Structure formats: C-alpha cells, structure tokens
C-alpha cells in the first residue's frame, strides 16, 4: 500500500519554516520524513506557501539524493558504496540483495516493504561493507547473512 498523507502535519511543517527561504532543504527533508517521499501536490503547496518559484523547489528536490519523487517502501535499504566498502566487496552485497528482493537499485518491492538505494559513504568505514536499513547500521555484512538481516524488517 502507498503511504497516506496527513495534511495537517504537512501544514504544521511548512508553518515552522515560513519566512526562512534558506531552509528549503530542511523543510523538504521534514516532509519526506513524514510522507516518505515528495508528492507533486506537496511541492506545489510548498512553492506557494513559501513564495519560492516551483522551478527552484523542483530543482532542489531532484538535485539532492536524499529526496525521492516516487513513494518509498516502509524500510529504506541503503547499500554503502564508499571506497572502503567497495574494496571489501560491497558490489557483491548489492547483487545479493537485488537477487533476494528481485528489484534493482532505485526500485521498491511490490508490497512496499523495501526500497533499495545506494549511498556514497555513511562514515562507518571501519566496519565495511556496511548496509544501512532505516537508521540502523549493519557492519561487516556478508552475502551469506543478508537474508537474516532483512528478516528483521517486516
């Protein structure tokens, strides 16, 4: 199921940032945390309420990797592709998870359980390869253990 939108919550988020045009990125981040992605109608609303051209709102929403214009799953898997993870086999882990969930990077499983993305370094290089699911960092991940890790997220 796609996540539903709580309009009141959105209004209160926008209210918090009114008059602070510089904080557009933080505003969009708060909305994304709430809704899980940035729906078109909310971007239009932000543009009107904040008095920022829609083109600028849209360019920011598409420029930064943290934002998604498509609905995301309940759990966000981020495979770290930083240098340390790369040399310790991150590509193998990525392939394993793609096969396990039968999706490619950027996609969401049909049941909206997982969205699979990559990230360039989460600063946990000492424990590479690293996979971040929601806010939990899993270190020293092995292909063999991927399934067990994913099972913790329903």
């Amino acid at each position, binding site marked *: 199921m796609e996540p539903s939108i709580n309009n009141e919550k959105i209004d209160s988020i926008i209210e918090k940032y009114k008059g602070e045009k510089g904080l*557009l990125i933080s505003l969009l981040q708060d909305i994304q945390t709430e809704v899980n992605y940035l729906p078109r109608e909310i971007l239009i609303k932000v543009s009107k309420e904040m008095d920022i051209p829609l083109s600028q709102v849209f360019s920011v929403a598409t420029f930064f990797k943290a934002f998604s214009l498509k609905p995301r799953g309940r759990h966000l898997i981020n495979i770290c592709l930083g240098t340390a993870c790369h*040399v310790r086999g991150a590509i193998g882990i990525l392939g394993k998870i793609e096969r396990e969930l039968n999706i490619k990077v950027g996609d969401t499983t049909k049941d909206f359980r997982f969205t699979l993305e990559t990230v360039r*370094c989460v600063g946990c290089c000492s424990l590479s390869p690293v996979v971040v699911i929601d806010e939990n960092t899993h270190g020293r991940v092995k292909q063999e253990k991927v399934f067990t890790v994913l099972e913790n997220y329903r």
Partner: protein
Amino acid sequence: MKIKTPEDLYMIKNEGLKALYPGKTKITVGTSTCGLATGAGKVLESLVDEVQKNDMDILIEKVGCLGFCQKEPIVTVLEPGKPKIIYEQITPEKVVELIAVLKRGEIKKDWVLCKMEEEECLVEGVTKKFCNEEGLKGVEDICLYQEVDFYRKQLKIALNNCGFIDPERIEEYIARGGYFPLYKVLHEMSPQEVIEEVKQSGLRGRGGAGFPTGVKWESCRNAKGDIKYVICNADEGDPGAYMDRSILEGDPYSVLEGMVIGAYAIGAHEGYIYLRNEYPLAIRTIKKSIEKAEGCGLLGKNILNSNFDFTVKINRGGGAFVCGESSALMASLEGKVGEPRAKYIRSVEKGLWDRPSNINNVETWANVPVIIARGAEWFAKIGTKSSRGTKVFSVVGKVNNTGLVEVPMGISLKEIIYDICGGVQGNKKFKAVQTGGPSGGCIPESLIHLPVDYEELTRVGSMMGSGGMIVMDEDTCMVDIANYFLTFLEEESCGKCVPCREGIKRARQVLQGITEGRGEEGDIELLQDLGAILKDGSLCGLGTSAANPVLSTLRYFREEYETHIRNKKCPAGVCRELFQYFIDPERCEGCHRCVEVCPQQAVSGEKRQPHSMDQSKCIKCGACVEVCKFGAIVKQ
C-alpha cells in the same frame, strides 16, 4: 544556569569531575555510530539490566568513540582507586559474565584491551592519576593504554575528548578544560590577538586544500560588511573519511567552542553547521548540544557575560558530494541547488547571501580551543615545518586494525599502516593506499616511507583531503579503483560546467571499456588528455581534481592498465569480464557449502568429491569464495 564568571565555570567543572570520576564504579560504553553498528546499543541495555538484577550501585554512561573501531563495542570499567580497564568486543552475552566478575572484584583478563592508570587532560596540559598503590596490584600483566601499538604513536588533539566524556554532558567537557579558552578569548584577548595566535600556530584547514586558518579569518575580518557568517562544514563527503562524524558524536562542544572563538575573531554573530543527512546520530547530538550551550549562556546573547552574541543553526545536507565545496555549500544553505560558482571573488568577501563568510571544517574548529589553551608556540612545535599540529586519519580497507588515528604531521605512511594499524589483512601483499578521497590518488608501496603532510602528499600526485586512508592489497585492481572514482564523480558532478560534466563521463566510459575488455591502444593517452582538460577547464575543485585517481594510478600502475588493454586480463581478479572462477580439485574437500550458496546453480559435485564450476552459468558474484573454508576457489 547561565555561566557568567570564572567561578561559575569552576563550579560546573567540579560537577563534571564528579561525573567523570564519581567515587563509585562507573562503566562506559562507546555508542558512536561505529559502536552501535556492532551492537553497542544492546550491550548498554544488558548492562543496565544486569546491574539492576544484581542490585549493584554502578553508574553507566554513554561515551563517544575511542578510535579503535575494529575492537568495538568498547566498554570501560573505572572502580575507585583502580586503573580504568578497557574491554574490547563486548557482546550482550558477555555482559552477564562481565558483571559477575566485577561483583567478585575481579577482572576478565581475556577480554581486556588495555588499562589506564592516568588520563591526560590535553587542554589543561595536566595528567590525572586515578589509582592508588593498592589498585595497581594484580593488573601488572595488563598492557597500558599508551603502550598499545594502536595508541602508542598517536597524539590526540582534535580527538582529545572522544571516548572519554559523555558527549551530551557539557559539565564533563568543561571538566576537561572546555570553555576556559573561550572565557580567556572573550575577556582577555582582542579579535586581532586571537587571529594572530591562530596564524602563529600554523593551523591549516583540515578539510581538503589546507588553507591557513588564521589568514582566512583575517581576510574575513577585514572584508567589508556589517553582517558576517561563520560556517562549519560538516558535509564530510569523502568516502572513507569519518573523523568529523566521530568528533560531532563524541565531542560536539569542542566544535561549538571553536566556532564561537572564530566568530569573535572575525566579528560574526550568526553561524551555520552544514551537516550531512547521512549522519543522523551526529545531527541529534549537535542539536542537543546547541540547546544546552544556549541554556548555559555559552551560545546566544551575551556569551559568558562578555556582550558578545553568537547563534548557530543547523542545516542538513541533501546527499550531494559537491556540497562539500564551499560555494556549493553556501548555495545549498540559501535553499538552492548545490552548484559551485567561479571564485573570482572569494567567499570570505562575498559568500552566503553575498556577505563575508568564513568556512572551516569540523576538525579544524575542534583544534581551535586547544590552540588557545596551550598557545600557538606549543601547537607549532608539533608536526612539520609547513604542516603544524596533528591530523586525524581514518585508516580503513584491507588493514588489520581499522579506526581513527590522530598523529603528528610528518609521520610516515608505513608507521600509520604497519606500526599503528597492524599491516595488511590476511597476510596479503600491500599494494597501495588511497588518500584524499575522489580528489586524491593511490600511493604505491615504493613510497611507503613518505612522511605524511600536505606538501608531500600533493607532490606524489595525491592530496591530504579530509584524511581518509583506504589500504589496498594485491586483490584490489587499480583500473577498477579509477573506474570506481570516476563513476562516483560522474554521478556527483553538478553538471554546471562542460569540462566536468562531459569530461568525467567520457573518461569513465574509457575506463569502463578497459575493465570490460574493450580497451584499445591509445586509451591511456586519451585519459591523460582528458585529465589535462579537466584540470584546466573545470569550475570547481571537484572537476579540477577529478582526474587524480586516474592519473595517479597511471603513474604508478601503468602496467596493470596495459595488461587489461593488451592481454584482456585483470591480474587482481576484480574486473568480472576479465577473469573466471575455477575450483582447485587439490584443495576442494567437497563440503557442498558453495553449492548451497550459488544463486545460479553454477557449482555442482558429489559430497566429499571435488566440485566443478560451470563457466556459462557463473555470474561471478563471489558468494562461493566468501563461504569456502579451504581457499579452493581460485581466479584465473
């Protein structure tokens, strides 16, 4: 309570000392992101449970990272009159026994990393002894902290509090000398004197190019304009570097104090911390610290009763590497896309909202209070002639002891990688160390004795960058690494200027071709040409340095490129199109492990008989190599 006088500071300091050395048993758990990733959260929970179950009067506290990430989760036990015992790799299961042992008044020596008989307080320049004659008995055979190979050659300035204090307790920061430097600055020094002190110290930016910090501050102070900004660059984007995260999570007040000192010197009253969204714990920690500092009168109006005002706001980044570049970062702070601009006019004159803006990174700010406390002369004695002080390196990759290492500038690569970090993993051969992130380069074994400072690293075709050091062994392919970085940079190029947008893309296509067996004669020369254009024609540092990973690997590993191009072979066995997996029948015990994990059913064979690999089915995912205990799967 608002802190106004030195007496107030001393009062809070005493509170902090009581929290640090409470006169009863105290246990700390390193709960930075690296600790949490290895289960420190659960260790903490079990500790609380066990202590309660056993009805023991023990204080349990969260601290930052001690730097030795390989040994996380790290737990320390401090009993009154005894040395502090540092335990390594503690799991929730081990906690039960640990508490039982502690109850009997013993030490679980098998799990001990080291002991500390005293603690140095760097800011004050004093050493606190915390054990008596009696306490020293029975622990003679435990290695001292300063004698552990990993710590022996380290000198911690930026990391001096990390792992020693609860990052959320301002009183513990003050107990270790914090905010006394700020008091001195605000009440006893003029802005010019502060700038002079920082200039004399020789401190240079720890985030990349190494610009002298004091000179930058002076330019910003002298720039025209009533409103000026002070910015902390916490958009630590270099893959492989995470010292800024560790400082923000383990010692946030050092950064805030550094920023107030800088703001006073420059004449700024507003500051920003631009922090990566990928660091949620750092964001939470610094947010709480700002609130607490405001409550104590150490941020906001009339700081320490000096009539000086300074406020700090946090901005979260959006996951764009280019935003680590100062002009792109400032554009992003204005709520725009993070595109850099040409720097005909420097940001110290026209930066954020076209006003004079001074930007330094986290590690640089964290050095400032110590410089003020110990003096420029003391700081300048550390390091080399052109690079003073220490630098934090994150030594990661194929190395035995991964972690954060803070050493005086000028120490050799060999000392860092071998003496401190224990050499290459699994008895493999050292091949190269990559420094400086995507703008840096790979340094080969022949240069392992190179002293590490800004100039030396640049001279050999790499750079300091923010301090990531990724160790590579014989199983790392240098063409693949160059391809990796160019793929990274292609994704992260903002697309504003043509040389960067198109040049990186073209270079990546050539490299990808080489790694996939489509390399041709002339490719190497083409890469060199593209590198020269990128360097001359790009707008910002991302583009001008983008060719470094290619040029440095070409400089030291040209043969490897040639083998890929001419023989269509990858000697390291990384480029999937250029090698095949075989099962060595001599070594294969027929355990069937590989058969079970192979997603393609490419491996077959009877149990206890040597297996065989069907090359037409194999996708080279490496799952079989990971599980094989006999090293029977070989690349050719």
